[in-house]
């Protein structure tokens, strides 16, 4: 009797741990991870309403003592944040539009047509993904100077209008559409181009959305290329505007963080609203490995 009771008791104890222990460890890690992931953003937003004294204080207080909305007003009016946002929008929209047209056409040819030299050109395009921008920055800058594109929108946009990543992403997608669908349309007398426009394109909705969101976000966040192409203050993208504010002698961190928060709003909204497309983009490009 006694031994049986002990066994049952210890069994119950062990089963409680076996049942809940690992789960609790997992929750613990996930909660720590969540805090670490979100903390910088929460802190950024609250600090953007503070002044220097409050940001750098010996004790942590997340909420500002006094909400200084004027930080945002100053960032928007005194600093060239509005102009930076406009420039970034123009650049990101141009790059996105360019990729939507050219990457889709090119990817279509790579995925659905057969012609001499196709695989060679595809490898060439993929190979350029391995070249870091940083390595070719000097000749690219010289090219921009030679074309007279320094400090221009075309200088910012055109060299980025078609990316290997976008072609790769759309090619992966076109490969998943059954060939029979296109063949059926061809037998009905549909031309190649019409086939692309009226048979394939209607199916690419989600993939196109993924491509657009990815390109836009990447372009919005781009720092290095604008840094090379732009030297005049009025052509600075928002990332460069922030970087210039950061370089000032006396930094008003509250105003700087307000500018930073403003710059994060467009991509933040895109992400919260369309999260699944971001994830899908990685899944699509990664599947083949």
């Amino acid at each position, binding site marked *: 009797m006694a031994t049986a009771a002990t066994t049952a008791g210890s069994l119950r104890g062990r089963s409680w741990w076996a049942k809940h222990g690992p789960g609790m460890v997992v929750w613990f890690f996930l909660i720590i991870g969540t805090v670490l992931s979100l903390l910088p953003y929460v802190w950024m937003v609250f600090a953007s309403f503070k002044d220097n004294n409050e940001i750098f204080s010996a004790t942590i207080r997340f909420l500002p003592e006094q909400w200084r909305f004027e930080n945002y007003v100053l960032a928007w009016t005194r600093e060239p944040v509005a102009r930076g946002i406009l420039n970034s929008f123009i650049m990101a929209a141009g790059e996105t539009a360019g990729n939507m047209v050219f990457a889709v056409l090119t990817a279509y040819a790579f995925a659905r047509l057969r012609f001499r030299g196709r695989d060679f050109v595809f490898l060439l395009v993929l190979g350029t993904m391995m070249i870091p921008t940083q390595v070719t920055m000097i000749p690219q800058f010289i090219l921009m100077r030679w074309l007279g594109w320094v400090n221009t929108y075309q200088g910012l946009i055109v060299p980025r209008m078609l990316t290997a990543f976008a072609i790769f992403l759309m090619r992966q997608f076109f490969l998943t559409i059954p060939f029979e669908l296109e063949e059926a349309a061809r037998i009905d007398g549909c031309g190649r181009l019409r086939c692309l426009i009226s048979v394939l394109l209607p199916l690419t909705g989600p993939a196109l959305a993924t491509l657009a969101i990815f390109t836009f976000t990447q372009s919005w966040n781009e720092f290095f290329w604008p840094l090379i192409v732009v030297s005049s203050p009025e052509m600075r993208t928002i990332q460069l505007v922030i970087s210039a504010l950061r370089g000032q002698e006396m930094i008003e961190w509250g105003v700087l963080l307000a500018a930073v928060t403003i710059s994060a709003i467009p991509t933040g909204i895109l992400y919260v609203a369309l999260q699944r497309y971001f994830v899908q983009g990685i*899944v699509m490009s990664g599947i083949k490995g």
Partner: protein
Amino acid sequence: MGLDGAEVPLSPTTLQGRPLWRRLHLPDRYSLFGMAIILPALVFFLVFRVIPLAYALWVSFHEWNLIRPMQWVGLQNYWRAFSDEAFLESLWHSFLYAAVVVAFALSLALLVAVLLDQKLRFAAVYRGIFFMPVVMSWVVISIVWRVMYAPTFGLVSNVLGWFGLPDVPILTNGALALFGIMIMGTWHALGFYMVVFLAGLQTIPVHLYEAALIDGAGKLQTFTKITLPLLRPTMLFAMVMCTIDTLQVFVQVYLMTRGGPADSTMVAVYYIYRTAFYLQEMGYGAALGMILLLLVLGVTLLYLRFVKVEAYY
């Protein structure tokens, strides 16, 4: 066009009355059409990617400050690079950064991906939160972390104080500055590779896990014997991507430490950028760029080779 070809589309007789390009036999027609579509892309990649690379190679054999004409110096820039201690040290910092971030970010990402793959409640919410750093620009991240890292009064110093740890100025301390940037890099990369691994985990057939369960395999055994080997292609993809990405570390350093204190966070790309655009030494900068490119390619080939050999047993 239209439906006129609907009867017998490909027989030679019905092709007679058509325009010349439609009368050509099929493979060639595909060929012309495909080439025509690909042409803009080909020109684009040649002009904006391939020719600049070739030109960089050409410039790297010259001395050039953009003002006076180029002067051929042969391999001199390369010899100079190998004895330039500041450059070699910046390379070392880049590789150290890459090694640490690749190791920590990928193992943590794998851990989190496996956890989130367990049909947890709110898994999608966690995934969304962990992925968030990826959509933010390096400029945003660098500035926010720069403020958090502020000595004595920053968030990090305060939190360290709670645990009774000494207050160390992270970004202004030569021994710790690179470490501080590595932590930030790991934090940033984690979410991206978590999603990559989650996608990889989806491709592993469920019946393998069911079979393992029936055979009485434990969780750890299932992970090491099924998950890890089958995840190898994804791992390779992640390692190559993450290494190429981290070897190019630049913005963080540019915005947080400017390479300091005392060059302790001087990384290769920042060194090249400074050489070319501040010191106006285009030829030397281009040579340094070519060296970095070769190293990146070398590491990638090593990975590919390493994984191929592994896959044979």
